[in-house]
């Protein structure tokens, strides 16, 4: 490892611009002649739009246009799509309710747009929006999943009778039934995985700019995957063919999944820009973020786990209801199926698993992938079950896990995933040592003497990252391949530009990706720049989500680097009159091994571009590209242990210690990895203790501001004690597994297991608010 190579704690290059306020976000961009959009949104959870009268608004100062859902449909702008086809157990395709970008006839959740005002300023647009009269006929609404599937419930979509999206199954039902028939013990658990609002720091925004002469659109947008946005906008929404649409995602202030999807506002901005012949800007505010950014989680699950007489798991049955909200968002269908049920084996040897997932429409904001996407729900369920089982079987929870750990790799689970490598005992050992697990009973006794209830909770998570082998996901219904692409451009002076299809919105790619180049060439990272987020610059890309940027995106860069280095070596060998096989790269020089003959990398680059003396037949230039398709998912795993105290008087939880021992494979920049883990853990703790997106029975959101929706803050969380136990991923040359979601996947079960341990009652739902905990303590 060089000072800036792989494994070095290099300070983030991008932070200078962020800390000094020089970041360039969509809202910072101002185009000549730009107009501003303000959306008129439904105040009702379910209603018919009987008419829209914009005559008064059109007379207001600065108003350019008022456009409605009907006009959008008349102009044949396509409905929003869901890109992953799921088939129900009866063989029928999932039931898709039509989702136009603005509702022409029916609104199905509070906040759904029905019209947009385009004006000279945002304030003028908002003034005019107040005098647009929308005539709604309210319809009965349903927000609760169980209520939605009852006979006689209000129906959302004619396409989906009974509000059911799909009824999907995975695993071997008869083998699972047989396991339960011979079980010595069965452990049962009902859990709710609470709905969350992602709340990236930067709200979504879009600027659309139509050039009538070229019939070309440019869209600046808050996207985690600009090429996917372009693909979807072109292929499905009739906006423009791909070569006539440039999508730019500049600095983006956090995504957590919520900026993967193509939303109505971007589509409307593009369409409106052509209609009014001027650039159109929309910047969402926090309330709009709460109402329209895809929410996360929202499962209700009943699970049963069968054990033999030696406390070995022999079977698992799961039935989950997943709330999709009012419409199927871009990747929503895959989240509670292939990203959830395929991880239900956890870190354990479970010979038979059967899971059924029922997707439900309700009059709420659509739900889609949010940090972890399906895997937090699976991990929470399994780790709550393990803790419940340990209590019921009266064994130590850590020991019960060890009894069931998978120790031989590769390991084929009964739910598709084939784990490539791991060492689950090693991470559990490290976490138990870090928290002094053996000393806990004494600490608990001491806390009791002080009037506090102390608890400890373990969570051993596994996730599937590095999303994903294209052929595999294609066979499961994905509409896209999930490879990544990269290009290495060496300039004639030897500086290097890396163009990547990954997108950085907080992950630090501008630093870590340079570290790979520094590692391989021995050049300082100041000589390298990372270009991303622009479909006109980067050849293609699938973007950043599913902890895939290092495992997939960086591997694509490696592949392109190898091609570039191979050509550079030929040039160096030619210049040094040596054989190509003798050339080694060291400290920025190409050397003839074992001699003092060397040529500096910039001279090789220059030679490539002057082309005065290249090997016969070689093309000038030094630029290579690569597409990399992973061969398997990667499987980050680890053990989290949380120790906390509950105040019996108030039910309030205070952390004593939180340890995380993760196996992410190779770490590129441990400092950035720690930041990712910290952020993930805080989101997991937020879900466990604070966050909950709530609707009343009529589908009115109760938590649409930070005054009601409790986001975790620094004083809500402990200092974390992190460590790493590493097994290199055999599936990619760098041995990387990914670290972006782990914290959010593993933390919540550790917290709830610790609280339920502290209070001595097993049934407690998230978020474990002080009120809930207090009532659980004092319940009969």
């Amino acid at each position, binding site marked *: 490892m060089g000072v800036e190579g792989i494994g070095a704690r290099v300070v983030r290059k991008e932070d200078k611009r962020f800390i000094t306020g020089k970041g360039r976000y969509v809202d910072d961009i101002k185009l000549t002649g730009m107009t501003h959009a303000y959306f008129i949104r439904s105040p009702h959870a379910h209603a018919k739009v009987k008419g829209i009268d914009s005559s008064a608004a059109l007379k207001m100062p600065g108003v350019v246009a008022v456009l409605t859902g009907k006009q959008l449909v008349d102009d044949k702008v396509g409905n929003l799509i869901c890109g992953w086809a799921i088939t129900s157990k009866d063989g029928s395709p999932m039931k898709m309710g039509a989702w136009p970008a603005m509702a022409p006839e029916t609104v199905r959740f509070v906040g759904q747009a029905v019209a947009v005002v385009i004006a000279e300023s945002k*304030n003028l647009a*908002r003034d005019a929006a*107040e005098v647009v009269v929308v005539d709604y006929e309210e319809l009965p609404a349903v927000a609760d999943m169980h209520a939605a599937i009852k006979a006689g419930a209000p129906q959302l979509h004619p396409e989906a009778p009974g509000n059911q999206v799909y009824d999907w199954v995975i695993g071997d039902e008869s083998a699972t039934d047989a396991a339960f028939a011979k079980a010595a013990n069965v452990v049962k658990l009902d859990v709710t995985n609470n709905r969350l609002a992602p709340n990236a720091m930067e709200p979504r925004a879009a600027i659309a700019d139509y050039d009538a002469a070229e019939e070309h659109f440019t869209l600046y947008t808050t996207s985690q995957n600009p090429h996917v946005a372009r693909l979807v906008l072109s292929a499905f929404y009739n906006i423009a063919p791909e070569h006539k649409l440039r999508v730019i995602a500049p600095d983006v202030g956090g995504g957590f999944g919520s900026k993967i999807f193509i939303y109505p506002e971007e589509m409307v901005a593009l369409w409106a820009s052509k209609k009014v012949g001027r650039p159109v800007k929309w910047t969402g505010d926090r309330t709009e973020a709460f109402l329209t950014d895809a929410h996360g989680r929202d499962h209700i699950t009943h699970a049963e786990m069968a054990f033999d007489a030696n406390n070995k798991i022999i079977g698992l049955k799961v039935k989950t209801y997943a709330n999709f909200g009012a419409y199927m968002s871009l990747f929503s269908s895959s989240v509670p199926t292939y990203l959830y049920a395929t991880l239900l084996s956890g870190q354990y040897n479970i010979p038979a698993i059967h899971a059924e997932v029922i997707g439900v429409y309700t009059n709420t904001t659509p739900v889609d992938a949010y940090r972890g996407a399906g895997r937090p729900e699976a991990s929470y369920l399994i780790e709550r079950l393990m803790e419940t089982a340990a209590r019921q079987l009266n064994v130590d929870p850590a020991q019960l896990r060890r009894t069931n750990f998978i120790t031989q790799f590769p390991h084929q689970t009964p739910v598709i995933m084939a784990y490539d490598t791991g060492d689950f005992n090693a991470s559990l050992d490290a976490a138990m040592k870090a928290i002094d697990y053996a000393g806990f009973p004494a600490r608990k006794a001491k806390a009791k003497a002080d009037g506090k209830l102390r608890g400890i909770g373990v969570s051993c998570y596994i996730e599937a990252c590095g999303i994903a082998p294209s052929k595999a996901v294609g066979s499961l219904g994905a509409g896209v391949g999930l490879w990544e692409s990269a290009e290495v451009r060496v300039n004639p002076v030897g500086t290097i530009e890396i163009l990547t299809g990954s997108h950085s919105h907080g992950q630090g790619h501008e630093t870590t990706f340079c570290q790979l180049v520094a590692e391989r060439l021995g050049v300082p990272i100041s000589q390298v720049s990372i270009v991303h987020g622009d479909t006109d610059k980067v050849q293609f890309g699938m973007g950043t989500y599913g902890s895939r940027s290092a495992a997939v995106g960086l591997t694509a860069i490696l592949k392109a680097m190898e091609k570039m280095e191979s050509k550079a070596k030929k040039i160096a060998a030619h210049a040094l009159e040596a054989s190509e096989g003798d050339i080694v790269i060291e400290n920025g020089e190409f050397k003839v091994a074992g001699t003092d003959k060397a040529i500096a990398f910039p001279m090789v680059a220059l030679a490539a571009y002057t082309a005065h003396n290249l090997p016969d037949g070689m093309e000038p230039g030094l630029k290579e590209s690569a597409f990399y398709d992973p061969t398997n998912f990667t499987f980050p795993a680890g053990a989290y242990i949380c120790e906390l105290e509950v105040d019996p*008087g*108030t*039910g*309030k939880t205070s952390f004593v210690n939180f340890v995380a021992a993760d196996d992410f494979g190779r770490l590129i920049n441990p400092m950035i990895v720690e930041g990712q883990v910290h952020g993930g853990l805080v989101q997991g703790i937020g879900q466990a*203790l*604070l966050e*909950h997106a*709530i609707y009343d029975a009529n589908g009115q959101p*109760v*938590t649409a501001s*930070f*005054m*009601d*929706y*409790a*986001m975790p803050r620094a004083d*809500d969380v402990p200092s974390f004690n992190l460590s790493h136990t590493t097994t290199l991923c055999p599936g990619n040359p760098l041995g990387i597994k990914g670290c972006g979601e782990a914290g959010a996947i593993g933390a919540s079960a550790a917290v709830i297991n610790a609280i339920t341990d502290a209070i001595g009652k097993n049934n407690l739902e998230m978020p474990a*608010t*002080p*009120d809930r905990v*207090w*009532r659980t303590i004092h319940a009969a």
Partner: protein
Amino acid sequence: MYQTTYHRASSVDEAASLFAKSSEAKFLSGGQTLLPVMKQRLAGPSDVIDLAKIKDMIGVEASGDTLTIKAATPHYDVASSDAAKKAIPALAYLASLIGDPAVRYRGTIGGSIANNDPAADYPASLLALDATVKTNKRSIAAADFFKGLFTTALEDGEIITAVSFPVPAKAGYSKMPHPASRFALTGVFVAQTKSGEVRVAATGASQNGVMRVPAIEAALKANWSPAAIDSVSIPASGLLADIHGSAEYRANLVKVMAQRAVAAAG
């Protein structure tokens, strides 16, 4: 935000006359309540009259048995005031618990009590300490000032200039913060006056805003100790209930916070 006209008053009289001249004016102090409401377009005053720069309205003073906090004094200044910490440490402590640092640097006692949010902290201290609200027109006893949710005895255009607190023999405050807003899910202020009277006020709990808690006062009058409250039962009826706290939970908090406030008061 709707269009509005901003005025920076340099004296209380000027503020009052500006108010009288405007069609629908609002006083602005720390802006921590008024500005968000205006940004959401839930309020659209024709004129905004800023009180926060009026010198006579800023400062904390102790004289004899009275601590006076002028109306435009930010919470941070109260929390860090030596005079307040010496005279009524529980009050300085209360100010240190309000919101977050940004809110404490801006928000003021005058704005807080004029707004009379049912979960605001200061009203509990005013009621428990039997404070007097001074306005440009009169003096109002705290008990007469708070009139239920977001309602006070203030007349249209009346300006709070200061609040004066009699220095108690003992006082304590304990608060369970609302997890999202950090207002009081329930906060209880206990005080024993120099004449031996016990006064207890709870905020965040009642559907009618800040309230005295006679049952706890009686228990503490007999025996000033946390244990004295053990046997008190607080009924849940009439208490607030929302996603962060049921009425039963708040009833429990009134009791538990009172016990902790007594423990803190010593």
